[in-house]
Protein backbone atom coordinates (compact mmCIF):
# COMPACT_ATOMS: atom_id res chain seq x y z
CA UNK A 1 0.00 0.00 0.00
CA UNK A 2 1.34 3.42 -0.87
CA UNK A 3 1.94 5.85 1.93
CA UNK A 4 -0.95 8.20 2.39
CA UNK A 5 -1.22 11.16 4.57
CA UNK A 6 -3.60 9.85 7.11
CA UNK A 7 -5.79 10.92 9.93
CA UNK A 8 -4.87 7.87 11.86
CA UNK A 9 -2.22 9.47 13.99
CA UNK A 10 -2.43 10.27 17.62
CA UNK A 11 -1.82 13.93 17.05
CA UNK A 12 -5.05 14.35 15.20
CA UNK A 13 -7.17 15.76 17.94
CA UNK A 14 -4.43 17.76 19.58
CA UNK A 15 -5.31 19.59 22.69
CA UNK A 16 -5.36 23.02 21.16
CA UNK A 17 -7.58 21.97 18.27
CA UNK A 18 -10.04 20.52 20.75
CA UNK A 19 -9.67 23.67 22.76
CA UNK A 20 -10.49 25.86 19.77
CA UNK A 21 -13.45 23.62 19.01
CA UNK A 22 -14.82 23.67 22.53
CA UNK A 23 -13.92 27.30 23.24
CA UNK A 24 -14.04 29.00 19.87
CA UNK A 25 -12.35 32.42 19.73
CA UNK A 26 -14.16 35.35 18.15
CA UNK A 27 -17.37 33.38 18.04
CA UNK A 28 -20.63 35.18 17.32
CA UNK A 29 -21.83 37.95 15.01
CA UNK A 30 -20.92 41.58 14.49
CA UNK A 31 -23.55 44.24 14.30
CA UNK A 32 -23.65 45.83 10.82
CA UNK A 33 -20.38 44.30 9.60
CA UNK A 34 -18.65 45.66 6.52
CA UNK A 35 -18.43 42.20 5.07
CA UNK A 36 -20.42 39.13 5.94
CA UNK A 37 -20.19 35.83 4.14
CA UNK A 38 -21.13 32.20 4.73
CA UNK A 39 -20.15 28.98 2.99
CA UNK A 40 -21.14 25.40 3.51
CA UNK A 41 -19.82 22.03 2.58
CA UNK A 42 -22.93 20.19 1.47
CA UNK A 43 -21.29 16.80 1.60
CA UNK A 44 -20.84 16.82 5.34
CA UNK A 45 -23.02 19.73 6.32
CA UNK A 46 -20.28 21.92 7.77
CA UNK A 47 -21.16 25.62 7.82
CA UNK A 48 -18.88 28.57 8.51
CA UNK A 49 -19.78 32.25 8.30
CA UNK A 50 -17.67 35.32 9.05
CA UNK A 51 -18.44 38.97 9.79
CA UNK A 52 -15.69 41.54 9.20
CA UNK A 53 -15.31 45.13 10.31
CA UNK A 54 -12.69 46.79 8.06
CA UNK A 55 -11.14 50.20 8.60
CA UNK A 56 -8.41 51.76 6.44
CA UNK A 57 -7.86 48.40 4.83
CA UNK A 58 -7.32 46.63 8.11
CA UNK A 59 -9.51 43.92 9.62
CA UNK A 60 -10.41 45.69 12.78
CA UNK A 61 -12.81 43.14 14.12
CA UNK A 62 -14.02 39.71 13.12
CA UNK A 63 -16.51 37.09 14.32
CA UNK A 64 -17.34 33.66 13.00
CA UNK A 65 -20.32 31.40 13.44
CA UNK A 66 -21.18 27.97 12.17
CA UNK A 67 -21.53 24.32 12.97
CA UNK A 68 -19.85 21.15 11.96
CA UNK A 69 -16.93 18.95 12.78
CA UNK A 70 -14.05 19.87 15.08
CA UNK A 71 -11.70 20.43 12.16
CA UNK A 72 -13.89 22.94 10.38
CA UNK A 73 -14.77 24.87 13.52
CA UNK A 74 -11.29 24.87 15.08
CA UNK A 75 -9.82 25.92 11.77
CA UNK A 76 -12.25 28.86 11.62
CA UNK A 77 -11.43 29.87 15.16
CA UNK A 78 -7.69 29.74 14.45
CA UNK A 79 -8.13 31.76 11.28
CA UNK A 80 -10.00 34.56 13.04
CA UNK A 81 -7.15 34.88 15.52
CA UNK A 82 -4.72 35.33 12.72
CA UNK A 83 -6.95 37.74 10.79
CA UNK A 84 -7.79 40.14 13.55
CA UNK A 85 -5.75 43.29 13.03
CA UNK A 86 -4.35 42.13 9.70
CA UNK A 87 -4.39 44.39 6.61
CA UNK A 88 -6.73 42.91 4.03
CA UNK A 89 -3.84 42.90 1.55
CA UNK A 90 -1.96 40.53 3.78
CA UNK A 91 -5.04 38.43 4.44
CA UNK A 92 -5.27 37.82 0.73
CA UNK A 93 -1.96 36.07 0.82
CA UNK A 94 -2.99 33.44 3.32
CA UNK A 95 -2.69 30.12 1.51
CA UNK A 96 -4.06 26.63 1.97
CA UNK A 97 -0.69 25.55 3.24
CA UNK A 98 -0.75 28.31 5.84
CA UNK A 99 -4.08 27.11 7.17
CA UNK A 100 -3.12 23.45 7.14
CA UNK A 101 0.22 24.31 8.71
CA UNK A 102 -1.45 26.21 11.49
CA UNK A 103 -3.64 23.23 12.29
CA UNK A 104 -0.37 21.41 12.68
CA UNK A 105 -1.74 17.97 11.97
CA UNK A 106 -1.87 15.72 8.99
CA UNK A 107 -5.22 16.17 7.34
CA UNK A 108 -6.48 13.23 5.30
CA UNK A 109 -7.87 13.97 1.83
CA UNK A 110 -11.43 13.40 3.00
CA UNK A 111 -11.09 16.08 5.68
CA UNK A 112 -9.25 18.73 3.67
CA UNK A 113 -12.52 20.40 2.75
CA UNK A 114 -13.40 20.70 6.42
CA UNK A 115 -10.05 22.28 7.21
CA UNK A 116 -10.25 24.79 4.36
CA UNK A 117 -13.87 25.85 4.64
CA UNK A 118 -13.06 28.96 6.67
CA UNK A 119 -10.36 29.98 4.18
CA UNK A 120 -12.98 29.73 1.45
CA UNK A 121 -15.24 32.05 3.44
CA UNK A 122 -12.39 34.55 3.65
CA UNK A 123 -11.48 34.32 -0.02
CA UNK A 124 -14.95 34.45 -1.47
CA UNK A 125 -16.42 36.79 1.12
CA UNK A 126 -13.69 39.30 1.76
CA UNK A 127 -12.39 39.73 -1.73
CA UNK A 128 -14.66 37.83 -4.08
CA UNK A 129 -12.24 35.20 -5.24
CA UNK A 130 -14.22 32.20 -6.28
CA UNK A 131 -12.04 29.29 -5.28
CA UNK A 132 -12.59 27.85 -8.66
CA UNK A 133 -11.28 24.39 -8.23
CA UNK A 134 -13.16 23.86 -5.02
CA UNK A 135 -10.64 21.34 -3.94
Amino acid at each position, binding site marked *: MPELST*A*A*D*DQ*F*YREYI*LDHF*KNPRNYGRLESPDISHEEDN*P*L*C*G*DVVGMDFRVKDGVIEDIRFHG*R*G*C*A*ISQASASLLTERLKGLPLEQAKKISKDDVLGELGIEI*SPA*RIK*CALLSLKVLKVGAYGLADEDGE
Partner: protein
Amino acid sequence: MAIRTLDVAAIRKDFPIFETGIAYLDSANTSQRPKQVTGAMMEYFETYNSNIHRAAYRIAEEATVHYEAAREKVRAFINAASTKEIVYTRGTTEAINLVAYSWGRKHIKSGDLIVLTILEHHSNIVPWQILAAEKGAHIEYVDIDEKGELRQDQFADLLRRGPKLVAFNLVSNAMGTINPAREMVAAAKKAGATVLVDGAQSTPHQPVDVRALGCDFYAFSGHKMLGPTGAGILYGRRELLEAMDPFMAGGDMIRTVRIEGTTYHDLPWKFEAGTQAIAEVIGLGAAVDYLSGLGMDAVRAHELEITEYAYEAMSEVDGLTVYGPPPSRRAGVISFSLDGIHPHDLATIADRDQVCLRAGHHCAMPLMTRLGLAATARASIYVYTLKSDVDRLVSSITEAQRIFA
Protein backbone atom coordinates in the same frame (compact mmCIF):
# COMPACT_ATOMS: atom_id res chain seq x y z
CA MET B 1 -37.33 -25.85 7.83
CA ALA B 2 -34.68 -24.97 10.35
CA ILE B 3 -32.60 -22.01 9.37
CA ARG B 4 -28.92 -22.79 9.21
CA THR B 5 -26.61 -20.55 11.17
CA LEU B 6 -23.63 -18.97 9.54
CA ASP B 7 -20.19 -20.20 10.42
CA VAL B 8 -18.76 -16.71 10.51
CA ALA B 9 -15.24 -17.82 11.38
CA ALA B 10 -15.16 -20.00 8.28
CA ILE B 11 -16.68 -17.26 6.17
CA ARG B 12 -14.06 -14.78 7.25
CA LYS B 13 -11.32 -17.06 5.96
CA ASP B 14 -12.69 -16.42 2.48
CA PHE B 15 -12.00 -12.69 2.81
CA PRO B 16 -8.26 -11.97 2.73
CA ILE B 17 -8.83 -8.32 3.60
CA PHE B 18 -9.63 -9.22 7.20
CA GLU B 19 -5.99 -10.13 7.66
CA THR B 20 -5.38 -6.38 7.71
CA GLY B 21 -7.24 -6.25 11.02
CA ILE B 22 -10.06 -3.91 10.02
CA ALA B 23 -13.48 -3.95 11.62
CA TYR B 24 -15.46 -3.27 8.47
CA LEU B 25 -18.79 -1.65 9.32
CA ASP B 26 -19.58 -0.07 5.95
CA SER B 27 -21.11 -2.93 3.99
CA ALA B 28 -24.21 -0.94 3.07
CA ASN B 29 -21.82 1.26 1.12
CA THR B 30 -19.96 -1.58 -0.54
CA SER B 31 -19.32 -5.10 0.67
CA GLN B 32 -16.09 -6.99 0.84
CA ARG B 33 -15.56 -9.76 -1.75
CA PRO B 34 -14.58 -13.35 -1.03
CA LYS B 35 -11.85 -15.32 -2.81
CA GLN B 36 -14.52 -17.27 -4.63
CA VAL B 37 -15.58 -14.08 -6.42
CA THR B 38 -12.15 -12.70 -7.22
CA GLY B 39 -11.05 -16.23 -8.06
CA ALA B 40 -13.81 -16.58 -10.67
CA MET B 41 -12.68 -13.30 -12.20
CA MET B 42 -9.05 -14.38 -12.21
CA GLU B 43 -9.97 -17.69 -13.79
CA TYR B 44 -11.61 -15.77 -16.60
CA PHE B 45 -8.63 -13.42 -16.98
CA GLU B 46 -6.07 -16.20 -16.94
CA THR B 47 -7.71 -19.08 -18.76
CA TYR B 48 -10.54 -17.95 -21.05
CA ASN B 49 -10.26 -14.18 -21.33
CA SER B 50 -12.13 -13.13 -24.50
CA ASN B 51 -15.18 -11.29 -25.68
CA ILE B 52 -18.64 -12.85 -25.64
CA HIS B 53 -21.40 -13.49 -28.16
CA ARG B 54 -19.34 -12.50 -31.17
CA ALA B 55 -16.64 -15.05 -31.48
CA ALA B 56 -16.21 -18.43 -33.05
CA TYR B 57 -13.58 -20.07 -30.90
CA ARG B 58 -13.57 -22.11 -27.78
CA ILE B 59 -12.52 -19.65 -25.09
CA ALA B 60 -15.01 -17.08 -26.36
CA GLU B 61 -17.72 -19.68 -26.15
CA GLU B 62 -16.61 -20.46 -22.66
CA ALA B 63 -16.81 -16.77 -21.74
CA THR B 64 -20.28 -16.59 -23.25
CA VAL B 65 -21.42 -19.65 -21.34
CA HIS B 66 -20.18 -18.25 -18.03
CA TYR B 67 -21.62 -14.83 -18.75
CA GLU B 68 -25.04 -16.26 -19.51
CA ALA B 69 -24.83 -18.78 -16.66
CA ALA B 70 -24.50 -15.87 -14.26
CA ARG B 71 -27.76 -14.51 -15.63
CA GLU B 72 -29.51 -17.76 -14.82
CA LYS B 73 -28.02 -17.70 -11.32
CA VAL B 74 -29.35 -14.20 -10.76
CA ARG B 75 -32.73 -15.17 -12.18
CA ALA B 76 -33.03 -18.05 -9.76
CA PHE B 77 -31.74 -15.94 -6.88
CA ILE B 78 -34.57 -13.42 -7.21
CA ASN B 79 -37.04 -15.92 -8.70
CA ALA B 80 -37.69 -14.07 -11.95
CA ALA B 81 -39.70 -15.92 -14.57
CA SER B 82 -37.09 -15.79 -17.30
CA THR B 83 -33.50 -14.79 -17.97
CA LYS B 84 -34.96 -12.41 -20.56
CA GLU B 85 -36.00 -10.30 -17.59
CA ILE B 86 -32.46 -9.99 -16.21
CA VAL B 87 -30.51 -7.09 -17.69
CA TYR B 88 -26.91 -6.42 -16.72
CA THR B 89 -26.08 -2.85 -15.74
CA ARG B 90 -23.22 -1.22 -13.84
CA GLY B 91 -25.36 -1.12 -10.74
CA THR B 92 -28.58 0.13 -9.19
CA THR B 93 -28.02 3.66 -10.43
CA GLU B 94 -27.67 2.67 -14.06
CA ALA B 95 -30.63 0.31 -13.73
CA ILE B 96 -32.88 3.10 -12.47
CA ASN B 97 -31.61 5.52 -15.11
CA LEU B 98 -32.31 2.92 -17.77
CA VAL B 99 -35.92 2.79 -16.62
CA ALA B 100 -36.14 6.58 -16.39
CA TYR B 101 -34.88 6.93 -19.96
CA SER B 102 -36.42 3.97 -21.75
CA TRP B 103 -39.69 3.57 -19.89
CA GLY B 104 -40.04 7.03 -18.38
CA ARG B 105 -39.44 9.13 -21.50
CA LYS B 106 -42.15 7.14 -23.21
CA HIS B 107 -44.80 6.93 -20.54
CA ILE B 108 -44.51 9.93 -18.24
CA LYS B 109 -46.48 12.88 -19.53
CA SER B 110 -47.18 16.42 -18.47
CA GLY B 111 -49.24 16.54 -15.28
CA ASP B 112 -48.45 12.95 -14.32
CA LEU B 113 -47.72 12.11 -10.71
CA ILE B 114 -44.65 10.17 -9.58
CA VAL B 115 -44.65 8.93 -5.99
CA LEU B 116 -41.34 8.45 -4.18
CA THR B 117 -40.54 8.34 -0.49
CA ILE B 118 -38.45 10.56 1.73
CA LEU B 119 -36.34 7.48 2.50
CA GLU B 120 -34.92 7.22 -1.01
CA HIS B 121 -31.30 7.19 -2.05
CA HIS B 122 -30.36 9.97 -4.49
CA SER B 123 -30.20 7.35 -7.24
CA ASN B 124 -33.93 6.82 -6.84
CA ILE B 125 -34.72 10.54 -6.69
CA VAL B 126 -32.60 12.53 -9.12
CA PRO B 127 -33.42 10.51 -12.28
CA TRP B 128 -37.10 11.11 -11.54
CA GLN B 129 -36.57 14.80 -10.78
CA ILE B 130 -34.89 15.21 -14.17
CA LEU B 131 -37.63 13.24 -15.92
CA ALA B 132 -40.36 15.19 -14.15
CA ALA B 133 -38.76 18.52 -15.03
CA GLU B 134 -38.45 17.47 -18.65
CA LYS B 135 -42.01 16.24 -18.96
CA GLY B 136 -43.81 18.60 -16.64
CA ALA B 137 -44.73 15.80 -14.30
CA HIS B 138 -44.57 16.22 -10.55
CA ILE B 139 -43.28 14.24 -7.63
CA GLU B 140 -44.71 13.59 -4.19
CA TYR B 141 -42.69 12.06 -1.37
CA VAL B 142 -44.20 9.75 1.23
CA ASP B 143 -43.07 10.98 4.61
CA ILE B 144 -41.94 8.94 7.61
CA ASP B 145 -43.41 8.81 11.08
CA GLU B 146 -41.46 9.36 14.29
CA LYS B 147 -40.21 5.74 14.23
CA GLY B 148 -38.70 6.22 10.80
CA GLU B 149 -41.33 4.15 9.03
CA LEU B 150 -43.24 5.22 5.96
CA ARG B 151 -46.59 6.82 6.59
CA GLN B 152 -48.88 4.32 4.95
CA ASP B 153 -51.91 6.59 5.41
CA GLN B 154 -50.21 9.22 3.31
CA PHE B 155 -49.13 6.65 0.76
CA ALA B 156 -52.74 5.51 0.43
CA ASP B 157 -53.84 9.12 -0.11
CA LEU B 158 -51.24 9.61 -2.82
CA LEU B 159 -52.30 6.40 -4.55
CA ARG B 160 -55.81 7.76 -4.74
CA ARG B 161 -54.45 10.49 -6.98
CA GLY B 162 -53.52 7.87 -9.57
CA PRO B 163 -49.73 8.06 -9.89
CA LYS B 164 -48.16 6.83 -13.10
CA LEU B 165 -45.08 5.57 -11.29
CA VAL B 166 -44.33 4.53 -7.74
CA ALA B 167 -40.67 3.97 -6.83
CA PHE B 168 -39.25 3.13 -3.42
CA ASN B 169 -36.57 1.10 -1.76
CA LEU B 170 -37.31 -2.16 -0.03
CA VAL B 171 -34.70 -1.31 2.60
CA SER B 172 -33.46 2.20 3.34
CA ASN B 173 -29.70 2.53 3.24
CA ALA B 174 -29.78 5.55 5.52
CA MET B 175 -31.93 4.20 8.37
CA GLY B 176 -32.20 0.49 7.67
CA THR B 177 -36.00 0.61 7.65
CA ILE B 178 -37.50 -2.47 6.00
CA ASN B 179 -40.54 -1.22 4.14
CA PRO B 180 -43.71 -3.33 3.82
CA ALA B 181 -42.92 -3.69 0.13
CA ARG B 182 -45.30 -6.45 -0.79
CA GLU B 183 -48.32 -4.54 0.52
CA MET B 184 -47.11 -1.30 -0.99
CA VAL B 185 -46.54 -2.86 -4.41
CA ALA B 186 -49.96 -4.50 -4.32
CA ALA B 187 -51.66 -1.23 -3.42
CA ALA B 188 -49.73 0.70 -6.06
CA LYS B 189 -50.51 -1.87 -8.75
CA LYS B 190 -54.14 -1.75 -7.77
CA ALA B 191 -54.03 2.00 -8.20
CA GLY B 192 -52.75 1.46 -11.72
CA ALA B 193 -49.15 2.55 -11.20
CA THR B 194 -46.01 1.06 -12.63
CA VAL B 195 -43.81 0.11 -9.70
CA LEU B 196 -40.04 0.16 -9.38
CA VAL B 197 -38.44 -1.27 -6.27
CA ASP B 198 -34.89 -0.25 -5.39
CA GLY B 199 -33.43 -3.49 -4.10
CA ALA B 200 -29.88 -2.25 -3.52
CA GLN B 201 -30.11 -2.89 0.23
CA SER B 202 -32.53 -5.80 0.28
CA THR B 203 -31.05 -8.21 -2.27
CA PRO B 204 -27.77 -8.68 -0.37
CA HIS B 205 -29.40 -9.24 2.98
CA GLN B 206 -32.66 -11.19 2.77
CA PRO B 207 -34.47 -13.62 0.49
CA VAL B 208 -36.01 -11.83 -2.47
CA ASP B 209 -38.75 -13.11 -4.76
CA VAL B 210 -39.63 -10.57 -7.42
CA ARG B 211 -42.67 -12.51 -8.53
CA ALA B 212 -44.08 -12.66 -5.04
CA LEU B 213 -43.22 -8.99 -4.67
CA GLY B 214 -45.16 -8.25 -7.84
CA CYS B 215 -43.20 -5.18 -8.92
CA ASP B 216 -42.54 -4.19 -12.51
CA PHE B 217 -38.89 -3.27 -12.09
CA TYR B 218 -36.34 -4.23 -9.46
CA ALA B 219 -32.81 -2.83 -9.35
CA PHE B 220 -29.72 -3.83 -7.41
CA SER B 221 -25.91 -3.69 -7.34
CA GLY B 222 -23.46 -6.58 -7.34
CA HIS B 223 -20.85 -4.72 -5.31
CA LYS B 224 -23.10 -4.61 -2.25
CA MET B 225 -23.65 -8.38 -2.29
CA LEU B 226 -20.08 -9.72 -2.35
CA GLY B 227 -19.72 -9.20 -6.09
CA PRO B 228 -17.14 -6.98 -7.77
CA THR B 229 -17.67 -3.35 -8.69
CA GLY B 230 -19.01 -2.71 -12.19
CA ALA B 231 -21.93 -5.16 -12.40
CA GLY B 232 -25.54 -4.85 -11.28
CA ILE B 233 -28.99 -5.88 -12.36
CA LEU B 234 -32.20 -4.49 -13.67
CA TYR B 235 -35.04 -6.94 -13.43
CA GLY B 236 -38.04 -5.95 -15.52
CA ARG B 237 -41.24 -7.77 -16.31
CA ARG B 238 -41.00 -9.07 -19.82
CA GLU B 239 -43.96 -7.22 -21.35
CA LEU B 240 -42.58 -3.92 -20.13
CA LEU B 241 -39.04 -4.58 -21.30
CA GLU B 242 -40.32 -5.79 -24.68
CA ALA B 243 -42.22 -2.56 -25.19
CA MET B 244 -39.32 -0.34 -24.21
CA ASP B 245 -36.84 1.23 -26.60
CA PRO B 246 -33.18 0.48 -26.03
CA PHE B 247 -31.32 2.69 -23.58
CA MET B 248 -27.84 2.71 -25.07
CA ALA B 249 -27.06 1.67 -28.61
CA GLY B 250 -24.06 0.02 -30.18
CA GLY B 251 -22.46 -3.36 -30.64
CA ASP B 252 -24.32 -6.50 -29.59
CA MET B 253 -27.74 -4.95 -28.96
CA ILE B 254 -28.64 -4.90 -32.64
CA ARG B 255 -29.91 -7.49 -35.07
CA THR B 256 -29.11 -5.66 -38.29
CA VAL B 257 -27.63 -2.23 -38.90
CA ARG B 258 -28.24 -0.64 -42.24
CA ILE B 259 -27.82 2.90 -43.45
CA GLU B 260 -31.58 2.87 -43.85
CA GLY B 261 -32.16 1.85 -40.27
CA THR B 262 -31.55 -0.67 -37.60
CA THR B 263 -33.38 -3.52 -35.93
CA TYR B 264 -32.73 -4.56 -32.35
CA HIS B 265 -31.78 -7.77 -30.69
CA ASP B 266 -34.05 -9.82 -28.44
CA LEU B 267 -34.28 -9.42 -24.70
CA PRO B 268 -32.22 -9.10 -22.63
CA TRP B 269 -29.42 -8.17 -25.06
CA LYS B 270 -31.41 -5.25 -26.46
CA PHE B 271 -30.36 -3.40 -23.32
CA GLU B 272 -26.73 -4.51 -23.28
CA ALA B 273 -24.90 -2.28 -25.76
CA GLY B 274 -21.18 -2.57 -26.29
CA THR B 275 -18.71 -4.81 -24.58
CA GLN B 276 -20.13 -5.62 -21.20
CA ALA B 277 -18.40 -5.98 -17.85
CA ILE B 278 -17.72 -9.65 -18.57
CA ALA B 279 -15.32 -10.46 -15.74
CA GLU B 280 -17.55 -8.56 -13.32
CA VAL B 281 -20.70 -10.39 -14.38
CA ILE B 282 -18.88 -13.69 -13.91
CA GLY B 283 -17.81 -12.46 -10.47
CA LEU B 284 -21.40 -11.53 -9.67
CA GLY B 285 -22.46 -15.04 -10.62
CA ALA B 286 -19.92 -16.40 -8.15
CA ALA B 287 -21.24 -14.03 -5.47
CA VAL B 288 -24.76 -15.33 -6.02
CA ASP B 289 -23.45 -18.88 -5.69
CA TYR B 290 -21.71 -17.92 -2.46
CA LEU B 291 -24.83 -16.32 -0.97
CA SER B 292 -27.06 -19.15 -2.14
CA GLY B 293 -24.64 -21.54 -0.48
CA LEU B 294 -25.02 -19.71 2.81
CA GLY B 295 -28.78 -19.45 2.42
CA MET B 296 -30.44 -16.05 2.50
CA ASP B 297 -32.53 -16.97 5.52
CA ALA B 298 -29.34 -17.72 7.40
CA VAL B 299 -27.84 -14.43 6.21
CA ARG B 300 -30.83 -12.51 7.50
CA ALA B 301 -30.82 -14.41 10.80
CA HIS B 302 -27.15 -13.65 11.36
CA GLU B 303 -27.62 -9.99 10.58
CA LEU B 304 -30.60 -9.74 12.87
CA GLU B 305 -28.56 -11.23 15.68
CA ILE B 306 -25.69 -8.79 15.19
CA THR B 307 -28.08 -5.88 14.73
CA GLU B 308 -29.88 -6.68 17.96
CA TYR B 309 -26.56 -6.95 19.73
CA ALA B 310 -25.39 -3.61 18.34
CA TYR B 311 -28.71 -1.93 19.01
CA GLU B 312 -28.60 -2.97 22.62
CA ALA B 313 -24.94 -2.07 23.14
CA MET B 314 -25.42 1.32 21.57
CA SER B 315 -28.60 2.08 23.45
CA GLU B 316 -26.55 1.92 26.61
CA VAL B 317 -24.19 4.68 25.48
CA ASP B 318 -25.05 8.07 26.99
CA GLY B 319 -25.77 10.80 24.50
CA LEU B 320 -26.13 8.39 21.60
CA THR B 321 -29.27 8.55 19.42
CA VAL B 322 -30.15 5.72 17.04
CA TYR B 323 -32.47 6.64 14.16
CA GLY B 324 -35.12 4.39 12.74
CA PRO B 325 -37.14 1.37 13.80
CA PRO B 326 -36.28 -1.47 16.20
CA PRO B 327 -34.03 -4.33 14.98
CA SER B 328 -36.85 -6.64 13.95
CA ARG B 329 -38.05 -4.12 11.40
CA ARG B 330 -34.67 -2.94 10.22
CA ALA B 331 -31.84 -4.40 8.20
CA GLY B 332 -28.26 -4.44 9.45
CA VAL B 333 -27.88 -0.69 9.27
CA ILE B 334 -27.58 1.53 12.32
CA SER B 335 -27.57 5.27 11.76
CA PHE B 336 -26.81 7.28 14.85
CA SER B 337 -25.44 10.49 16.27
CA LEU B 338 -23.55 11.48 19.40
CA ASP B 339 -24.21 14.62 21.40
CA GLY B 340 -21.46 17.15 20.83
CA ILE B 341 -19.43 15.01 18.46
CA HIS B 342 -19.71 15.43 14.72
CA PRO B 343 -20.02 12.13 12.80
CA HIS B 344 -16.90 12.93 10.82
CA ASP B 345 -14.88 13.35 13.96
CA LEU B 346 -16.23 10.08 15.26
CA ALA B 347 -15.35 8.32 12.00
CA THR B 348 -11.83 9.71 12.13
CA ILE B 349 -11.34 8.53 15.69
CA ALA B 350 -12.81 5.11 14.86
CA ASP B 351 -10.46 4.91 11.90
CA ARG B 352 -7.51 5.15 14.27
CA ASP B 353 -8.74 1.84 15.69
CA GLN B 354 -9.23 0.43 12.17
CA VAL B 355 -12.98 0.63 12.59
CA CYS B 356 -14.48 1.53 9.20
CA LEU B 357 -17.55 3.66 9.79
CA ARG B 358 -19.49 5.83 7.39
CA ALA B 359 -20.28 9.45 8.22
CA GLY B 360 -22.33 11.78 6.07
CA HIS B 361 -25.68 12.10 4.40
CA HIS B 362 -25.57 8.58 2.92
CA CYS B 363 -26.83 9.90 -0.41
CA ALA B 364 -30.14 10.58 1.26
CA MET B 365 -30.12 14.34 1.69
CA PRO B 366 -33.90 14.79 1.62
CA LEU B 367 -34.16 12.37 4.53
CA MET B 368 -31.41 14.20 6.42
CA THR B 369 -33.18 17.52 5.82
CA ARG B 370 -36.39 15.93 7.04
CA LEU B 371 -34.65 14.76 10.21
CA GLY B 372 -33.02 18.16 10.66
CA LEU B 373 -29.56 16.62 10.48
CA ALA B 374 -26.59 17.40 8.30
CA ALA B 375 -25.05 14.00 8.75
CA THR B 376 -25.14 10.84 10.82
CA ALA B 377 -22.67 8.10 11.56
CA ARG B 378 -23.66 4.72 10.17
CA ALA B 379 -22.56 1.20 11.00
CA SER B 380 -23.68 -1.51 8.63
CA ILE B 381 -23.05 -5.21 8.73
CA TYR B 382 -22.90 -8.32 6.62
CA VAL B 383 -22.25 -12.05 6.65
CA TYR B 384 -18.71 -11.62 7.96
CA THR B 385 -19.52 -9.21 10.79
CA LEU B 386 -18.59 -10.31 14.31
CA LYS B 387 -19.97 -9.16 17.62
CA SER B 388 -16.42 -8.11 18.40
CA ASP B 389 -16.59 -5.66 15.46
CA VAL B 390 -19.49 -4.06 17.30
CA ASP B 391 -17.50 -4.07 20.53
CA ARG B 392 -14.69 -2.28 18.76
CA LEU B 393 -17.13 0.34 17.50
CA VAL B 394 -18.48 0.89 20.97
CA SER B 395 -15.01 1.40 22.37
CA SER B 396 -14.22 3.89 19.59
CA ILE B 397 -17.35 5.75 20.58
CA THR B 398 -16.25 5.76 24.20
CA GLU B 399 -12.82 6.99 23.17
CA ALA B 400 -14.37 9.80 21.13
CA GLN B 401 -16.47 10.81 24.09
CA ARG B 402 -13.37 10.86 26.26
CA ILE B 403 -11.52 13.07 23.77
CA PHE B 404 -14.41 15.45 23.30
CA ALA B 405 -15.47 15.46 26.94
